[in-house]
């Protein structure tokens, strides 16, 4: 398990990770669980973290991978549902109590448009524009080349502009 210094450094990014988790899950209890799971994994595998590299990017990478793992699991479960309709309200973590009132509401068109973006577009925008991460760090989180990140940012913004135009009509 991680030592106290590592825990302290890692917890400095708690708010940023929680914000990211909220945009991924759209649900506060799920975001709580996702962030907690991320930190537990980070503490457990802290020996694998290379000192001198970017801790923030490493933590975001763990969070995204954790999300995708559960997201894909839920997607697969939804795919075999009897009615064939994905149930997106199903809690991502099995021990999360289902609370319909806890789902996050979108307050602005921009937020609403962000929600409708595919995860890979939403993530690059959140990391690059909202968190202000350099493209190299975003590439590390997304586990893809920098060129791909640039391309995704461009396409994400294009898609976002289209959605915002639709809302103005």
């Amino acid at each position, binding site marked *: *398990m*991680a030592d106290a210094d590592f*825990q302290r450094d890692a*917890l400095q990014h*708690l*708010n940023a*990770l*929680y*914000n990211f988790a*909220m945009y991924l899950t759209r649900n*506060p209890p799920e*975001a*709580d669980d996702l*962030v*907690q799971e991320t*930190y*537990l994994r980070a*503490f457990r595998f802290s020996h694998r973290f290379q000192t001198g590299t970017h801790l923030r990017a490493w933590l975001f990478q763990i969070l995204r991978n954790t999300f995708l793992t559960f997201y894909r699991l839920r997607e697969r479960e939804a795919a075999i549902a009897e009615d064939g309709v994905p149930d997106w309200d199903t809690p991502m973590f099995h021990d999360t109590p289902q609370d319909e009132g806890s789902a996050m509401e979108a*307050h*602005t068109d*921009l*937020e609403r448009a*962000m929600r409708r973006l595919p995860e890979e577009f939403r993530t690059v*925008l959140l990391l*690059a*524009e*909202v968190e*202000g991460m350099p493209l190299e760090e975003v590439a590390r989180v997304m586990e893809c080349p920098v060129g791909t990140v640039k391309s995704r*940012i*461009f396409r994400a*913004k294009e898609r*976002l*502009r289209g959605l915002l135009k639709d809302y103005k009509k």
Partner: protein
Amino acid sequence: MTSTPGDSIPDSDEHLGRRLAAELPRYTAPASLRVAILQAAEPATARRPAWLSPLLASAATAMVFAMFMLTVLPRVQPTDPVDQMVRAVVSEHSRALMWGSRQSQVIPAELPWLQAQSGIGLSSAFVGDDSLTFVSAEPVYLLRQRGLAVHYRDVDGHLVTYIALPADELKVPDRSRVQIDRYRPALVKDSGFVAWVWRQRDVACFLVSDMVSADDLERFKDYFIRVRTSTEPTLAY
């Protein structure tokens, strides 16, 4: 709409990026989440006392060593020679009880053969009567010694086994001796069986049965008298 220097064009990538940074609401982690994370992380380090790991390691090493030694250590055997002999005799009786004799010989017709094989001669032998029927006689090998076993069966179906072995250093224990008529054999119990133990010159003699109850024991005394008075074993060589 006029754009001033430094302003980006509306809907340009740069402008959209700034809008995202400025207008998207930021969600702050609840204070309870930080506490929950620290609590979840803590037990693994705090719950386990420092001395537990070395203790578990040493216990595991000791267990492995003990398991290894179990295969090397000799089996626990009775230290008393009489108890050792009785245990061997009872085992032979149990074997005969379950699977019968390896080869049945008829007394006295086969006595010379038995003597040659067992090293025990019988100048006279109890060949059975109305209450105790002769079943078989055979050579045996117990505690690295050749000997002789004669099996009888009583009217109730009890198997009674007479065994004679070279006595060597056998001393019949005084504490277990029972006066029967003019004899004083020792009565020794083992594994649910009971045995009369006595010595005739250089031969150790045993009469084994499962007649352990008080009533059975009286009859077993009678069987002893019958065998003892009629059987004279000697070392053949």
